[in-house]
């Protein structure tokens, strides 16, 4: 026994006088990164991400970049980005200057975005001018770049940068939700360049409030008819109906509307209708009362965002003799009736649908109403729709609504027998294979994924 213990003690002493282990964690990581085996490199990369602390270590790791092949440059860049140490930046900028590989360039840009600050805007701006994927990487990097200096530099680009970059800078600032840049957006809303105007209106649609409404109205009026005007309208309406301070924004819009020259008012009718509200309705009433402006009033009314104008629409529909007006008013009612705007409860919405149905004069109108009604998800709606499955001209829209209502498991399971019979009827009636498939799935208690 004593002999064995002595042998073990001697062995231990021998172990201790073996070569002294390496003491440099950075050198050990670099050694691992030089391996061809990705599993060993992964350990090294993990240490870069979460260990081997210090700027000196970061610089040593970053200095390896230039000597690596592209694939390894990308993995090292990603690890350095996760490490989050600014000390890597000089080496990364050098790499960016020399590298041709798109993946390497994108990874380098992403790193600059995640660890850089205002000083890196200039480099990233250059990449904005190139093609994708570098441009997309630069855009993302500028969105995540930290610091107020980055915002102020991007704002300078938005105000007076190169023509091709100004709109991009505005989009980036909007994605950053940079409220400090709102004055620059306001100035750009009426810019001579359509792309800049469009970007500014989009940005104001996200970040604008009551103070920006006058500039947005001006931007809307200066927008070219078509896509630009439609997008500008959406942004203006969003500020007046969704954004913080929406009530004051809507008031500001109405005040501007009243003060606007007659020639421009027509253009503003469309957003007026979509913004809605009692004061807007009063303006519309005045227009409707004036035969010369009745069309404008109708146009605004038919774009109303909620069901508060229902009585007005029904009243006008009952009195008009003009087929085009009738069609416009009926279309508005069909659109408004099932709107989920909390103005009506489900029963009131369905009552309105029931009231509209006899006013429809063609099967096309009835079909439109039957297709819209499934937005009111009640068993009463289902019972209203079901008989139309038997009418050949309306069978398909009715089948569609039955299937849509059956899609909602709670509704379907609470009235299983009724739905099972109705789905059998749909299967026997419809010519649409998707409805048949869905009906069969719902009968079996299965779900269906929308394509």
């Amino acid at each position, binding site marked *: 026994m004593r002999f064995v213990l002595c042998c073990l003690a001697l062995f*231990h002493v021998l172990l201790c006088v073996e070569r002294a282990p390496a003491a440099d964690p950075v050198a050990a990581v670099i050694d691992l990164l030089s391996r061809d085996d990705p599993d060993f490199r992964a350990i090294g990369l993990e240490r870069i991400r979460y260990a081997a602390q210090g700027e000196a270590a970061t610089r040593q790791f970053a200095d390896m970049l230039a000597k690596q092949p592209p694939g390894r440059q990308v993995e090292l860049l990603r690890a350095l980005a996760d490490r989050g140490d600014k000390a890597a930046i000089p080496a990364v900028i050098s790499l960016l200057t020399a590298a041709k590989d798109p993946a390497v360039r994108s990874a380098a840009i992403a790193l600059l975005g995640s660890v850089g600050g205002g000083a890196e805007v200039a480099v990233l701006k250059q990449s904005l001018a190139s093609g994708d994927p570098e441009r997309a990487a630069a855009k993302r990097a500028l969105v995540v770049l930290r610091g107020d200096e980055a915002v102020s530099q991007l704002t300078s680009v938005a105000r007076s940068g190169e023509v091709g970059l100004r709109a991009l800078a505005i989009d980036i600032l909007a994605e950053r939700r940079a409220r400090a840049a709102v004055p620059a957006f306001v100035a750009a809303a009426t810019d001579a360049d359509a792309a800049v105007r469009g970007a500014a209106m989009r940005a104001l649609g996200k970040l604008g409030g009551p103070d920006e409404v006058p500039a947005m109205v001006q931007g809307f009026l200066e927008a070219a008819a078509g896509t630009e005007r439609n997008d500008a309208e959406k942004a203006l309406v969003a500020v007046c109906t969704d954004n913080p301070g929406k009530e004051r924004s809507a008031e500001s819009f109405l005040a501007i509307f009243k003060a606007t020259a007659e020639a421009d008012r027509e253009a503003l009718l469309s957003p007026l209708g979509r913004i809605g509200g009692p004061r807007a309705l009063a303006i519309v009433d005045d227009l409707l009362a004036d035969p010369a402006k009745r069309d404008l009033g109708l146009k605004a009314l038919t774009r109303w965002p909620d069901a508060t104008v229902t009585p007005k629409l029904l009243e006008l529909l009952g009195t008009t003799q003009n087929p085009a007006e009738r069609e416009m008013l009926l279309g508005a009612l069909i659109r408004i009736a099932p709107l989920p705007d909390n103005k009506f409860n489900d029963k009131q919405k369905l009552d309105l649908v029931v009231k509209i149905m006899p006013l429809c004069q063609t099967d096309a109108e009835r079909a439109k109403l039957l297709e819209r009604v499934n937005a009111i998800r009640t068993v009463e709606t289902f019972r209203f729709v079901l008989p139309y499955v038997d009418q050949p001209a309306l069978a398909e829209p009715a089948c569609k609504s039955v299937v849509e209502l059956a899609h909602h498991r709670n509704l379907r399971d609470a009235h299983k027998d009724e739905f099972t019979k109705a789905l059998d009827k749909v299967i026997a009636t419809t010519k649409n294979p998707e409805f048949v498939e869905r009906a069969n799935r719902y009968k079996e208690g299965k779900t269906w994924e929308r394509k």
Partner: protein
Amino acid sequence: MPFDLMSLDAPFAALKAYDWGADAAAFKTIDDAVVAAHGDAVLRADLEKRLAMILGAGTSRAAKEYACRKLMMIGTAASVPALAALLKNADNSHMARFALERISAPEAAQALRDALGSVQGNLRIGMIESLGGRGDAASVPELARLLSADPPVAAAAATALGHIHTPEALAALSAADPLAGSGVGRAVVDARLASAEALLAAGKRVDAQRVYQTLADAVKGKPGAKAVELAAARGILACLDTLAATS
């Protein structure tokens, strides 16, 4: 209020006749006494004596197991002989070890070491595991010798040595082949890694790194040893980081 020793008479009489399936409610008094014994030396001695008597002939396996569980909590050197007598019995050896492994008296470790040379097969492996579980430095020479025994015993010995964090245990493991077959090499690797982790946790960074490095050198480039190389590499880096953080 002192525990009434007389109140234990009836439960222990029931325990003597107890077998699986019978009502164990009567033992609640014994359970309470075990708890109360932590501050009562007289009660503890009395209980230990009564429980040790249950381990003798004439009681069922169920009763012996119950007694072992209680002795695990309150046992001292006094109950070691009764427990040691069960170590060679295939039915009771496991529960006797369960108690002996946790009784801190050196006599308990000695009983396990004594039994190691006189049992075979799974019982022997059990003794090895219990000695490892106790971290028994005195058993290192015998465990080191068993590293060259048949594979299941050798693997158990390696694992046990990995739990005994002494230089001698580590030296024995360092001399063992981490690439040995039949599961022995895997146990040696695990034990060496466990030893290194223990050293690192104890702040012995250089010693820990040496263990990792020796292991890495031993398996470097050998077929099927990549996972070991990776584990050793990770360990070395953890050692180096610890050094960097403390220097």
